[in-house]
């Protein structure tokens, strides 16, 4: 399912077309002890996900080429990536986006601005849920 193992640090795939934000989160995740992969758009996110099968994906929803919703839908429709939790990130706080994200298969929804430490806390929470679920 995933290549994670107790000895290996969890791999987080950060997908965002806005470089400053993507690199900021990547830096802070690495600072916080995660392995990090990055993607700039939906297509890259799919390629990376299939190639690396990360432990968790942070998905910005407004992406070029293939948007976050569509990318999430494809990931969740593929047996190889279906189990990877996806945390949606959006700067659009308008109601309805979170519902749409859930509909696309996102496991969590975080509104930007989101401070790096808050995002890491959410990643840890989701992974803990995931780990618990796997343990059972």
């Amino acid at each position, binding site marked *: 399912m995933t290549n994670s193992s107790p000895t290996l640090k969890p791999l987080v795939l950060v997908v965002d077309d*806005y470089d*400053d*934000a993507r690199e*900021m*989160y990547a*830096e*802070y995740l690495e*600072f916080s002890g995660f392995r990090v992969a990055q993607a700039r758009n939906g297509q890259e996110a799919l390629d990376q996900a299939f190639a690396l099968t990360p432990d968790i994906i942070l998905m910005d929803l407004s992406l070029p080429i293939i948007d976050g919703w569509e990318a999430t839908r494809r990931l969740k429709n593929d047996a190889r990536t279906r189990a990877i939790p996806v945390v949606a990130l959006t*700067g*659009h*706080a*308008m*109601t*309805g986006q979170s519902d749409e994200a859930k509909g696309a298969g996102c496991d969590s929804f975080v509104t*930007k*601005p*989101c*401070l*790096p*430490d808050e995002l890491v806390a959410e990643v840890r929470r989701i992974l803990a849920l995931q780990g618990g679920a796997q343990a059972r």
Partner: protein
Amino acid sequence: MASFAPLAPSPPTSTAEARLSLTELLLACDAARPCAEAVVEWLTVHARAAAAACVAREEPGGRLVCLAARGLSEAQCASLEPQQDDTRHPLVEALTRDAPHFLPSPRPPLPRGETAEGLFTVPLGHAGSPPVGLLLVWASGPALPSEVSWVASHAGPFLARQATGPRGTGGSDLFRRIIDAVVDPILLTDLVGHPHLANARAEALLVANPGSSEGRRRAVRLNQRVLAAALASTASGGVPGPSRREVPLVDPVEGMDLLFELVTQRVYEPDGREAMVSVLRNVTDLGRATQALGESYRRLRATEREARSERHRLDRVLDSVADPIILSAPSGGTVMMNDPAEKLFTPPPNAGRPAQRRVRTNHATFASFLANLLGAEGSLRWRGQLSLVDPASGATRPMEAVASKVMGDGGELTGIVTLFHDRSEALEKARLLERLREVSTLLEARVQVATAELAEQNEKLRRQAIQLEQASAAKSQFLANMSHEFRTPLNAILGYTNMLLQGVSGELSPAQKRNLTRIDSNGRHLLEVINEILDITRIEAGRMPLNLSDFRIPELLQEVMAEMDPIIARSKLAVSTHLAPRLPQVHGDRQKVKQVVLNLLSNALKFTHEGAVKVSAEYAPSTAMLSISVSDTGIGIDPAQQEKIFEDFQQVDSSPTRAYGGTGLGLSICRRLATMLGGRVSLQSTPGQGSTFSLHFPRRTRRT
């Protein structure tokens, strides 16, 4: 009654005395029998008769009876009385003779005398009338003894009168026949009505034989009483001339009621006594005729009355009809008309020449109209339009007229009824209707124009509404986009600041840390402003829907206090919560209630430097409203400013150098959220003493 027999020439003295004594005897007699006794006695003594007897017709019936006898046995006496139907009896034959007759040898049943061979039969009665009886003298014949003829001539009438009673007084058979021949009953009575003489017709009414039927006897008795009463009253009236009155009698044979006119005349009998002659004239038929006549007269009167009232009623009916009606004779002449017709066809009272001329015109118009029907053989009806003129005013009265022939039983024309119907009203109505139609058409056209205009306006409004909606949507989209565009860089600013402050890029000097903290706090404030603008935008764009759920106030306040705890801890204020007992479960938008309370509490903490902040919740069952109030001992708000602070971007101090932070959008959002919940936010405040902000909202929020 006392009629004396004429005296015979004087007889010899010896016999004269005997005759005188007999005459005296006879005068003293008041009945036939003693009279006969005396005569028979006298004859045997003075006429030397071997035997003598006196027979007379008995009244009523006319049977011969033996009144008295001398020298005869009883059986011989009885043989002198013939049976009713025995017409061959010698005495019946003897009675037919009007002169004395000698039978030398009387044939049976007449007895033979012992000493004398022959028998004289001497008729008794008035001279010139049939004998009423016989004097029978058994003596030697053939010469009649003079004493016998004297007795017969003197005692005869006397005896006859006595024997036959009143009837004998009546005189001759001729007289009898005469009065019997009279068709009207004739009576001679005394003053109290006892009859002395009655003709056959009267007897038929007033006399009953013992052998008569009970009905006849009763009828006779009744008639006698009625007549006696009538005569008695006439007699007591004392009218000298003949008096007339009507008496109702009964026909004893038929039993029919008869009506008689009783004509009574007082007369004097030969003996000087007053009597009454009554003639009864049968007026039954006359009475009936009169009665019938009276009846038919009454009926005629009744019929006439009925006809008159019928006519009167008809008149009133006709008059009550508002339309004129005229009944014309077949000739065309007017027979009658009702009141409305009279108004048109007769000149009004005191009419001037113009009115009379108009009436003539109307008549002419009507006559020419009638001519149409009179001229048409087959048709029974004619309808036409007439233009009549009101005689009084001269106004034209357009009329519709229908003339109908009235046919008699034999199919002959008896009259023509014409009904008029005033068409003025109908024409006026038609005119008004036409006018109404025109106006209606006009109105319709106007309405159409107005409707078109309205539709155009509506279309314009609709377009404007769409434009406004589009503009509003565009605005909302713009703000949404803008907030996104703001957040993206702000996310990086706050993120990197956060990382730097955490020492991701190495330890910082205190000055660097202080400056980074300022970047952080300003960035957060900017974010807050952006978020609040976004909230207002969402509310106004209708993109903040109600999420209704059941929740409880104590738990909600606990959450609020927990979230505010870091700030409360930093302040030096006594913050307390007061919950009223029995707070009900609430059905509403929990998130929005919480947001309002958070905002109010955050404000209270911000504007209070010392003292206390109290959060309390209560429920008013009468209005089903909940209130959550936040009271502080802060700076308070001047009444003049109290409404203003709910407006967008308003604080009491709006100057750029104001002492308190915040966007000034908080209360504005609170008010909007409270409205969405179906409630409101109220404020009570005294400057320098503190403020109480309250959120009031219904226990059950309904979607609008």
